[in-house]
């Protein structure tokens, strides 16, 4: 299974962007099992790219394909199926339910298409150092804690592609490494592809291909 980008460019970017970018305006294919690192300075369209690949926004020219299907042809039900089976994401802005507890936030995702047991939530949370936060409301957790909740949430479903949009922006080096290890383990277990977009290169992500946005 491949995730293909064909001549992709946000409608709000000028054509000249294609010349300076290794992604915009190019034909690319990401395959399962690959580790893709995208280095992108602020304002280069990193979050836009992630949202386009996840099918959340459509303000682009070009094509995003999952397998042989153009995702712009998907309807709301197709996206629901796609997002609960084939693609997962860690948003830069986290997107948790602030009034729900950490456990409820994770359970809402897990029950959608349970890949792990409920007990695994406790295991993952302890591993990332938020084991004692499961009963706390998400809004009273620190940004770093919320980011770890968002990371665990992305790992509770089956997926072929895991999209990471600056997943460690609020984490220290040690916690980032722990989270990375967990994500790598989970991806290998599924033979999934990680597409990791960040401001700079991170040494502990063993990418197989590197792109500059």
């Amino acid at each position, binding site marked *: 299974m491949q995730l293909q980008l064909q001549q992709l460019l946000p409608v709000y970017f000028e054509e000249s962007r294609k010349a300076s970018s290794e992604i915009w305006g190019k034909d690319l294919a990401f395959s399962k099992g690959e580790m893709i690192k995208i280095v992108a300075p602020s304002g280069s369209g990193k979050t836009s790219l992630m949202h386009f690949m996840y099918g959340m926004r459509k303000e682009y020219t070009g094509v995003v394909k999952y397998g042989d299907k153009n995702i712009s042809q998907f309807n709301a039900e197709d996206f629901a199926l796609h997002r609960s089976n084939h693609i997962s994401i860690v948003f830069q802005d986290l997107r948790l339910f602030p009034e729900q507890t950490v456990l409820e936030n994770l359970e809402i995702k897990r*029950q*959608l298409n349970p890949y792990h047991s409920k007990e695994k939530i406790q295991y993952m949370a302890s591993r990332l150092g938020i084991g004692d936060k499961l009963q706390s409301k998400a809004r009273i957790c620190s940004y770093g804690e919320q980011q770890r909740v968002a990371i665990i949430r992305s790992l509770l479903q089956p997926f072929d592609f895991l999209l990471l949009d600056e997943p460690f922006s609020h984490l220290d080096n040690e916690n980032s490494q722990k989270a990375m290890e967990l994500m790598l383990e989970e991806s290998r277990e599924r033979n999934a592809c990680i597409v990791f977009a960040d401001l700079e290169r991170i040494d502990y992500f063993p990418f197989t291909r590197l792109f500059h946005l």
Partner: protein
Amino acid sequence: MPLTYKTIKPLLLTGTNAASRWFSYIGLGIGVLLLLSSLQMFFNIQSLLKKTSIRKNGFDYVSVTKLITNDNMGQDNRFGPADVEELKQQPFIEDAAPLLSNKFEVVASGGEVIPISSDIFIEALDHSFIDTVPPSFTWSEGQMVVPVIFSSDFLEMYNVFAPSYGLSQVSTATAGNLSITLRCEGKLEQQTFRANIVAFSDRVNSVLVPASFLGWANKTLEGVDDTKASRVFIKTKDANSNDLLSFLEQKNYRVNKDKTAFGRSKQILQGIITGLGVFGILVIVLALMLFSFYLQLVIARSKDSLQLLLTLGYSPSWLSKNVARQFIPVYILVVLFALLLTQGMQWLFHHFVMYDRPELSSILHWSIMVIALLLIILSVITNFRMVRKLLYRLS
């Protein structure tokens, strides 16, 4: 573990703006109550007037005579076949039939129960114009018993004056068993028959005999084969229509409208009840609209959470079904409550207003239950479609 709505439920902010929710519930309840009780009243009126109504299949049946004035007195003021045909041709008249009468003398005597004899008239009318025609209302030559359909009004009149003459009053049941003798005397012949009252008519003020008997008797006893009639019965959609009345006036015809009065009142009463029912439907529509505004508000307030659920991979149709399902028990309760109230009102109406009249029932008509069920289904479907539309808009 199957997907459960329990974890999602707290994300829907239903607690906000409870007043608008309660207004819509109460509105829906009132609308359903109005609709159901109007329908039940409609059925009540149908049952109450079924026996006495002179309207049949939605038509008025009225008799028409020519207006007798000082100018035309002494002339032949009867309707000929051409007059009847002209009446039939009018667009506001469905059908017309002459009331043929006897051309010979008829003297009736009532036997032991009514020991009097009197000159009477007999008439014949097409069966489709008579409200009560039993199968026994036939006569063939040689038959000595003549079946008679008697006007209910005539019987009532007899019962009014009978005591003053020392005669006994007669019930409809007894009248059917009376031994009446009809002595028919014409220019050519005289014969005596036994008459048997086989039915009473609320519509036709006459003593009706089968047309076969009257035709035979006129010809055999009097030697006349006259088809002219003093009265014509007409069948019309509305005996009070302007077209009909102006036509009759122009022709110098007179219509006997007394008989239509009851039908009119019933029609007016049904009109009012129908109006109430329509008002009930309007209230239901209004309540459903109010509820849809409330739902829009709930969904708008919960927009962020619902949008995030859709982003995470929740199916909009699954979410719509589950969000809409939350309100089903409320709809069922509201309609059931209105149904129970209607049942209570029907019981009170039957018991205290109609004094348990046998034509009515204390239990609601079955179609009221069906309507209530349909209303529940309608509310649930409207609700589901509304939620689904709003959620698809979010995704």
